[in-house]
């Protein structure tokens, strides 16, 4: 814990925390692509254009939410957690529908792991770290702005 606090003084958050975030990000991108493939091949009969459109839009929205997590948003972290759970749940019925279930099983495992990791202490610590970091910057900026305003007033006076 002490080590983490020391590392926290540098520009990057502690690598252990950031590594967890990156792992979850990659898992969710993979889960989105694989679940998309499973959904489009088993549940939905839509045109190829729509398939690619839905896939890219979902990843785009995911990236925005993920970016908000890097800015310390607990709400967005929760969205990702339930997103992982939804992707896992969506794939479960396909286990009964198709013969080659290993791929789907892998995807379900991947998404449940992502859910577990997001709920875990390390990921939440990272969000807390980022949240505190940006709060500190905001506070420091406000202080500097006040100082400058005061200095300008004194100059005029």
């Amino acid at each position, binding site marked *: 814990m002490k080590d983490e606090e020391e590392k926290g003084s*540098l*520009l*990057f*958050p502690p690598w252990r925390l*950031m590594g967890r*975030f*990156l792992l979850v*990000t*990659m898992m969710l*991108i*993979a889960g*989105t*692509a*694989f679940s*998309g*493939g*499973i959904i489009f*091949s088993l549940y939905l009969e839509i045109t*190829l*254009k729509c398939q*690619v459109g839905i*896939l*890219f839009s979902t*990843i*785009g929205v*995911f*990236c*925005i939410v*993920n*970016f908000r997590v*890097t*800015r310390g948003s607990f709400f967005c972290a929760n969205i990702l957690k339930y997103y992982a759970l939804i992707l896992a749940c969506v794939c479960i019925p396909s286990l009964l529908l198709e013969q*080659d279930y290993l*791929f789907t099983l892998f995807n379900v495992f991947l998404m449940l792991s992502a859910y577990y990791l997001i709920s875990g202490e390390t990921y939440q610590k990272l969000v807390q770290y980022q949240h505190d*970091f*940006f709060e500190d*910057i905001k506070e*420091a900026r406000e*202080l*500097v702005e006040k*100082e*400058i305003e005061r*200095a*300008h007033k004194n100059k005029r006076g």
Partner: protein
Amino acid sequence: MGAHDIYNFKENQLKTRLAYNINQKKLFQDIDKIPELYGAAVVFIDSNYTITELRPFDPSCSLNPIKVILREPPKLMHQKEFAGHLKGSQGNIRESKLVGELAGTVLSCGAAFLGWIAVFGSSAAIPLTGGTSAAVTYLAVGASTASSMQCGNGLYRVYNERRNPEMNDFLDSNEWYQDITTALDIISLAGAAAAGAATLKTVKLLMANSSKSTSAILKGLSRAEKKRLTQDIIRSNHPGISNKLLKNLVKSGRYPKRYSGIKITQSLKLQLKDAIGASMSFSGSALSGNVNSIAVGIYEELAQ
């Protein structure tokens, strides 16, 4: 010289080459030993698709013309693929495509991975870079999103390659799909350009404040240089700030006296990572995306 003359020239060149490389007399004799092929025409197609007839068809033994075609693998086609293609079996081609898809996906996902590190760190570098990092952050987010989409697209294609390979062929045949990958490539390249420009700007800023070489700057700055640099950064953040106020702010502890060497080098590392991440996006798209043709062009040039 017209196109026809150029083709004739190429054909003659091919004929000369084959005259040296193939014992044509023996080849014709061997062909004629096969009763079904007796008198068959012999045609040769080289790797550049130049066609030449080595021997015309002799109609004395067969009414229907028979042609024995000898064909070199096309320059850009792997030998294994070519064999599979000629046999009419798609198995080998599919296998190679899966490997290609996986390679492109790994690169795109690697780019996305590095991109997210840059996004993460560049927002933390905002206080150090005096706000310039904020703009780079949003560009980095754009580049990371594009790389993430390419990564997702690659994984989706890997899934298709395993489950429904025709889907990928159908995707490739659509113009709109090519347009989307073009857009993603442009965003990734814009991210690369922005990251490169930001890196140069930072190095220039550092060089302006130091008499040291670039490599020495990247290693670290002296204490006095760091102090001067810190003051310059604060001034660039607040152009109206006076020296007196600056000193007061430093005294009150609201501004640091100097940034540590580790913080400065971390900031540079971050921007270099961003540049590498964006260049990996480029490599990823070079394998499976829009930049494909350009990359091939370069390789041809190097080969010559």
